């Protein structure tokens, strides 16, 4: 029973000091190695391919990287990138070999992402130019496609690729005709092709067939072709495919064909008579009608999904005719009990309602929606009701009905607990119909699911401008409070239903979380005084309860903060109102206890809550008084030494905030003459230099940056010493975020030193307005004294791209500021500058051991101007693999994996 052992908590994703970072924040190495001898591997001329494995295309790519680099060379490299719109001769040369490999069943293609990339490349080429020319210029492609027709044991991936490639090529009508002449298309897509063979058992091939047709169906000729080869019937059957991807793609293809076959908006006045529709469209619509009449739910679902996609994507006038024709069938579904495919039906109705092509009032949509709302079970009707309420123009009666559906579960809760549904009258009529009560009471799962969904829907609705008006704030507040009381066991229902509900919801964490979120959102409105008192009481109950799970507690803290924020302000004063202050007096002992919790998540949420509160009310007398009278600041200070790094990080942030507001308690005894403030700076510096985890160190850097920005008393005393110390420690940190934050601090210092108000985008500062105060050299002196430049130059060659980018931005900013100043003599040729440049080159090469020593402003400026910062910035902005992303490299890669290009083997050993 050890504390915390009953629950396993998910640690934060990004634990550790940057070694395991969340997706999207992973540092990417910058392709910064310049010079002819540089290579990505860092070992010139050595290629890292493990022994015993076949060589791959890496060698070539590596050489290519070596050729490209920063500056003009890099620009050339980019020009030759994947974005090239026509096939260059090198690729044309490689293509026959590749086609031969693809056609050879003995050469299996291990990596099908290559095929995807290849297809993307072909798409790019065909979008930019003529497919016919491409085919004529590269006969190997037609050969490859023809080869697919031969009976042989081809890989399903290659077959699918060929089908898709054919589709891409045949999307252009002339190319389509060209391929038709060779009877290639009917052979590939008709009965004679894979469709009738063993390959068809592979979902990849079926998917390739559909996608091929999807690309191909772009012109009227394609429509004829589809009709002739009987493809549409095959697509119908593929809707029921065992592979969900295939089935879904089949549905989308049907929608596409339907759209293609129908007259477009530009094609003259469209015939709105269904009988005049093209045969293909009639066939598809007929199939949909048949499916809608079917008894099997999967068939109905398919039809509804096809219609949903149709109305979602196409808003031409014919869609209205389609709806008029099909709506009786759709409405017919409502007569079945239970309503089949309810979720798909809801999606369809909402899709129709949102479609601008349909005039909702004329086609009876509102009636159908109203009917649907009353037929569906409360669980199914919820999403529909939400969708209706989000619609812009919708009859008031329907909105009212939808809102009533949405509110029903909560009305049931209020009724079961015998509470007055409130004076607003909105919940009056909705005393919880029996169906909702039936849904709520039988099982815990159904009850919890319905309540959570209802709360989530209402939470989504609340911030919308088209939310129902009047908004039943008071009853909803009452319902949220009641739910929380039921879950917490403090409700005392008198009815049987209430007692039953209480037993179902007791201790239910899901409902607790949803209700707390909802309660937090409700804080944006107001409520009657007594209800607000209840809200604070229930929040306090949750914060106090030893049974609140850490996640529930976190949400309770968040909701509490939001309610405190919304509590009425005394006019002319930003302080908390007297009620909130009274609440705070009860809250702080709870917070105190939570800061001592054995569960680190609880300590962490407690600290975050404290930080938020301090940020908002730290300057207010009432809050300050209550906080200083409690043990909270002292406990927070102790948590700086917590064994859990996240807690330490939160404690650092909280202490930084407390200290900024002067809320750190000075030690009581005379044995601490320096006072707490002084020692906090020392303690944070200690954490920055010694903490084994990245999070606390990052937090310290953020606090320091903020302190510098705010001219915190400790910092203002000797800013230079402070900045110098921090930068020195930060530059040696292994965590890139700490180094990046160091640059942020450096930037703040730089701005303060050069006397410019902070601009949000440093690069946006134009040289014209950048006039330093006083002589430039004098202004730069402090920067030199704190060794800011050494830190920035080092960061420029940082192995982590964001750091290098930030440093680049900082130096560009500085250069822009100093550009207009001609007062300094250029000392480009001085030996000092040369030695600095030499050192920088060594750093760039990876040898960062050598320090720069003391720099003079003149030298700095000279070095700054000699650096190709713009080029560097451009290179850093590219993704790390941009230099490798060329079609030629792709083709080489593919050939290399199957060993056709054997010439490189010697390179690898």
């Amino acid at each position, binding site marked *: *029973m050890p504390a915390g052992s009953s629950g396993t908590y998910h640690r934060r994703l990004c634990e550790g000091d940057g070694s395991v970072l969340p997706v999207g924040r992973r540092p990417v190495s910058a392709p910064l190695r310049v010079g002819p001898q540089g290579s990505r591997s860092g070992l010139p001329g050595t290629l890292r391919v493990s022994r015993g494995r076949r060589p791959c295309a890496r060698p070539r790519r590596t050489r290519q990287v070596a050729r490209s680099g920063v500056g003009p060379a890099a620009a050339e490299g980019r020009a030759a990138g994947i974005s090239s719109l026509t096939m260059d001769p090198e690729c044309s040369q490689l293509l026959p070999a590749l086609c031969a490999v693809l056609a050879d069943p003995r050469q299996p293609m291990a990596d099908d992402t290559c095929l995807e990339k290849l297809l993307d490349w072909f798409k790019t080429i065909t979008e930019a130019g003529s497919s016919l020319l491409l085919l004529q210029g590269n006969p190997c492609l037609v050969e490859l496609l023809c080869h697919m027709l031969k009976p042989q044991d081809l890989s399903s991936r290659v077959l699918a690729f060929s089908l898709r490639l054919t589709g891409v090529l045949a999307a252009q009508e002339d190319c389509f005709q060209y391929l038709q002449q060779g009877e290639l298309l009917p052979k590939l897509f008709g009965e004679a092709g894979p469709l009738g063979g063993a390959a068809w058992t592979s979902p990849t091939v079926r998917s390739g067939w559909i996608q091929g047709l999807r690309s191909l169906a772009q012109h009227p000729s394609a429509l004829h072709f589809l009709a002739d080869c009987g493809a549409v019937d095959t697509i119908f059957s593929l809707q029921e495919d065992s592979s969900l991807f295939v089935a879904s793609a089949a549905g989308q293809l049907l929608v596409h064909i339907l759209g293609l076959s129908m007259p477009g908006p530009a094609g003259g006045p469209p015939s709105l008579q269904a009988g005049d529709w093209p045969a293909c469209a009639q066939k598809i619509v007929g199939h949909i009608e048949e499916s809608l009449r079917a008894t099997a739910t999967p068939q109905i679902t398919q039809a509804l999904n096809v219609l949903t996609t149709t109305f979602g994507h196409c808003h031409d006038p014919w869609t209205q005719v389609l709806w008029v024709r099909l709506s009786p069938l759709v409405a017919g579904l409502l007569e079945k009990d239970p309503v089949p495919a309810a979720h798909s039906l809801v999606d369809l109705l909402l899709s129709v309602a949102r479609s601008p092509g349909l005039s909702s009032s004329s086609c009876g949509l509102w009636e159908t929606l109203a009917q649907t709302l009353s037929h569906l079970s409360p669980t199914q009707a919820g999403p529909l009701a939400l969708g209706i309420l989000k619609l812009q123009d919708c009859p008031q009666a329907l909105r009212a009905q939808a809102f009533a559906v949405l509110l029903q579960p909560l009305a049931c809760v209020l009724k079961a607990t015998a509470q007055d549904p409130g004076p607003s009258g909105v919940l009056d009529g909705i005393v919880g119909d029996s169906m909702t009560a039936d849904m709520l009471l039988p099982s815990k799962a159904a009850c919890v699911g319905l309540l959570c969904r209802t709360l989530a829907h209402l939470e989504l609705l609340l911030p919308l401008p088209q939310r129902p008006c009047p908004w039943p704030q008071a009853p909803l507040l009452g319902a949220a409070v009641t739910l929380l009381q039921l879950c917490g*066991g403090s409700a005392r229902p008198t009815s049987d239903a209430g007692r039953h509900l209480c037993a179902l919801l007791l201790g239910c964490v899901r409902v607790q979380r949803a209700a707390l979120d909802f309660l937090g959102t409700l804080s944006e409105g107001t409520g009657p005084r007594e209800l607000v008192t209840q809200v604070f009481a229930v929040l306090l109950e949750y914060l106090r309860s030893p049974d609140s799970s850490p996640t529930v507690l976190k949400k309770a803290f968040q909701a509490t903060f939001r309610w405190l924020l919304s509590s009425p302000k005394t006019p002319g004063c930003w302080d908390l109102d007297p009620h909130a202050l009274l609440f705070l007096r009860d809250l702080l002992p709870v917070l*105190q206890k*939570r800061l001592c919790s054995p569960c680190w998540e*609880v300590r962490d949420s407690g600290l975050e809550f404290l930080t938020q509160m301090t940020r908002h009310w730290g300057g207010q007398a009432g809050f300050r008084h209550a906080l200083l009278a409690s*043990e909270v600041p002292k*406990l927070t200070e102790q948590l700086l030494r917590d*064994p859990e790094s996240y807690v330490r990080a939160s404690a650092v942030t909280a202490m930084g905030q407390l200290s900024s507001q002067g809320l750190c308690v000075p030690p009581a005894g005379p044995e601490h003459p320096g006072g707490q403030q002084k020692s906090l700076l020392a303690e944070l510096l200690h954490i920055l230099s010694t903490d084994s985890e990245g999070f606390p160190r990052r937090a310290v850097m953020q606090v320091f940056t903020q302190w510098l920005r705010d001219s915190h008393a400790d910092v203002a005393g000797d800013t230079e010493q402070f900045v110098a110390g921090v930068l020195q420690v930060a530059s040696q940190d292994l965590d890139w975020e700490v180094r990046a934050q160091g640059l942020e601090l450096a930037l703040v210092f730089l701005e303060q030193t050069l006397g410019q108000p902070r601009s949000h985008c440093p690069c946006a500062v134009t040289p014209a307005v950048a006039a330093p105060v006083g002589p430039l050299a004098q202004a730069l002196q402090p920067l030199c004294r704190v060794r800011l430049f050494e830190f920035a130059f080092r960061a420029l060659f940082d192995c982590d791209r964001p750091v290098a980018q930030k440093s680049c931005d900082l130096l560009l900013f500085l250069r822009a500021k100093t550009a207009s100043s001609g007062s300094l003599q250029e000392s480009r040729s001085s030996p000092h500058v040369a030695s600095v440049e030499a050192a920088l080159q060594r750093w760039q090469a990876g040898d960062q051991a050598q320090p720069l020593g003391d720099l003079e402003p003149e030298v700095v400026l000279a070095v700054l101007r000699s650096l190709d910062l713009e080029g560097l910035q451009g290179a850093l902005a590219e993704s790390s693999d941009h230099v490798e992303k060329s079609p030629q490299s792709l083709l080489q890669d593919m050939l290399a994996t199957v060993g056709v290009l054997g010439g490189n083997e010697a390179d690898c050993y």
Partner: protein
Amino acid sequence: MKLYCLSGHPTLPCNVLKFKSTTIMLDCGLDMTSTLNFLPLPLVQSPRLSNLPGWSLKDGNAFLDKELKECSGHVFVDSVPEFCLPETELIDLSTVDVILISNYHCMMALPYITEHTGFSGTVYATEPTVQIGRLLMEELVNFIERVPKAQSASLWKNKDIQRLLPSPLKDAVEVSTWRRCYTMQEVNSALSKIQLVGYSQKIELFGAVQVTPLSSGYALGSSNWIIQSHYEKVSYVSGSSLLTTHPQPMDQASLKNSDVLILTGLTQIPTANPDGMVGEFCSNLALTVRNGGNVLVPCYPSGVIYDLLECLYQYIDSAGLSNIPFYFISPVANSSLEFSQIFAEWLCHNKQTKVYLPEPPFPHAELIQTNKLKHYPSLHGDFSSDFRQPCVVFTGHPSLRFGDVVHFMELWGKSSLNTVIFTEPDFSYLEALAPYQPLAMKCIYCPIDTRLNFIQVSKLLKEVQPLHVVCPEQYTQPPPAQSHRMDLMIDCQPPAMSYRRAEVLALPFKRRYEKIEIMPELADALVPMEIKPGISLATVSAVLHTKDNKHVLQPPPRPAQPTGGKKRKRASEDIPDCKVLKPLLSGSIPVEQFVQTLEKHGFSDIKVEDTAKGHIVLLQEAETLIQIEEDSTHIICDNDEMLRVRLRDLVLKFLQKF
């Protein structure tokens, strides 16, 4: 089958089950809440307690002022604390054959039963139960005996006087039966009657029933009991836990298919989740100590304290409390901490595996080694020299009426920096604190009761599906303070039968079968005849031999040779003189076919009448009546034996003989 309920306390049960020919006492818990009516026994003279004013009646009559003292509006008996014993009048306890003990908390009344009622049976319990039970008794005796009190109040117990007293004294039940604590000698004598058993061990009681202890997961060596005969099974569930704490997990599977399940010892605080309470305990402890205050934890010397120490072991470093001393003061502290480490086979799997590493199963060994936890037999001696503050003290007794805790309450009660944290759920903390009022120290109530809660019980009952559930009446309705909480009661079908103190319950379950063995030679001689597929019958002549509640059919004895008679006898004389056995008949007579047969044999004018029990076949011509019922057939005719025999033979044709 009858159940005699001798205790009104659901978690300290004492019931007697009469089953077959045995009388089995199930637990003998001692209700110590009676001590809350007494003044605490201070280790050293407490001027505050000794100067409390005597209590006088409303009319000013002060004849009770020596016995009753008043403190902050409450009245306490100034005497040696007394305990409320189980009922002794309901059943003659000398007839009890065996006592089955579930856990060490449920054996505290044992000396009263074994030493003062003429009990001559055996007590069964597991080894840890006995050892830790001994520690608890030893501590109790020590706490009370080391502060002898000359005065013994008895006047207040007079029924007429008790009526005049304020609550809760007025409402105290059976005060005349309240007894002072037993002596160590009685404890030793009682414990000597215990026979040790292991889990799943089958113990035969007089051949009539078999009892088996099963792990109940609540405490070291705690058990539930199965009492079964060949055809009946009674489960006794007392103090069980499904939480993963230190003891072996609960054995639920063996409880399946019980005819009756007696359910006692559920959690006393069903609304408090033990995990949450442990968190609360740690937070409050840290908060107090960080502020320079001391923490007092009144507790038993075994049980939850092991878990608390384990939690603190993990927590103290993270809370920065590594330098705070933890003291465990009890006359049996050392034995308890050491015993816990040696009962490896009774521990949960995790802790068992540690023993093979080898590591002590409980981390308190490390706390002791690193001097973070120190234990002392009492306040006197080493403790007073080692003692430094702020600190955390674990000590007994949780009632706050005796033991070292009384001293700490007096010592620390005046400062609001200090905190007393109640973790044992047995005593109401408000009542426990009453004689210490006014109190400045903070009081935190974190009752940790790992026993089954009602959700777990309902799952358990669904799984083991007993035919009948019997439980204390407290479990059949929500707690009075939370009458809306329908979830805080036992909900099962058929509804549970409830009992209360001094009630005798006839269990709704009839014994229908008894097992009888047939000797092999006799079985050999049987000639079974199949009367229905799968059912064969045979006649048997034998002697039923019954001994030790076991029944055996033996071949009938051959008649003894007549002594002094003729040496030779005729063969016919060898046949024993027994009646010629008529064959046994089975089957039923289909009336229609029977009538047809009669007609075939020349009977005419046959009339059939249906009766409530069967049919009457009327042969009007022959003036004869054949009455056919389920288990008998009568032929009624006027002295025509020939006709009767003819009819009888026709009837017999439809029946099977063997």
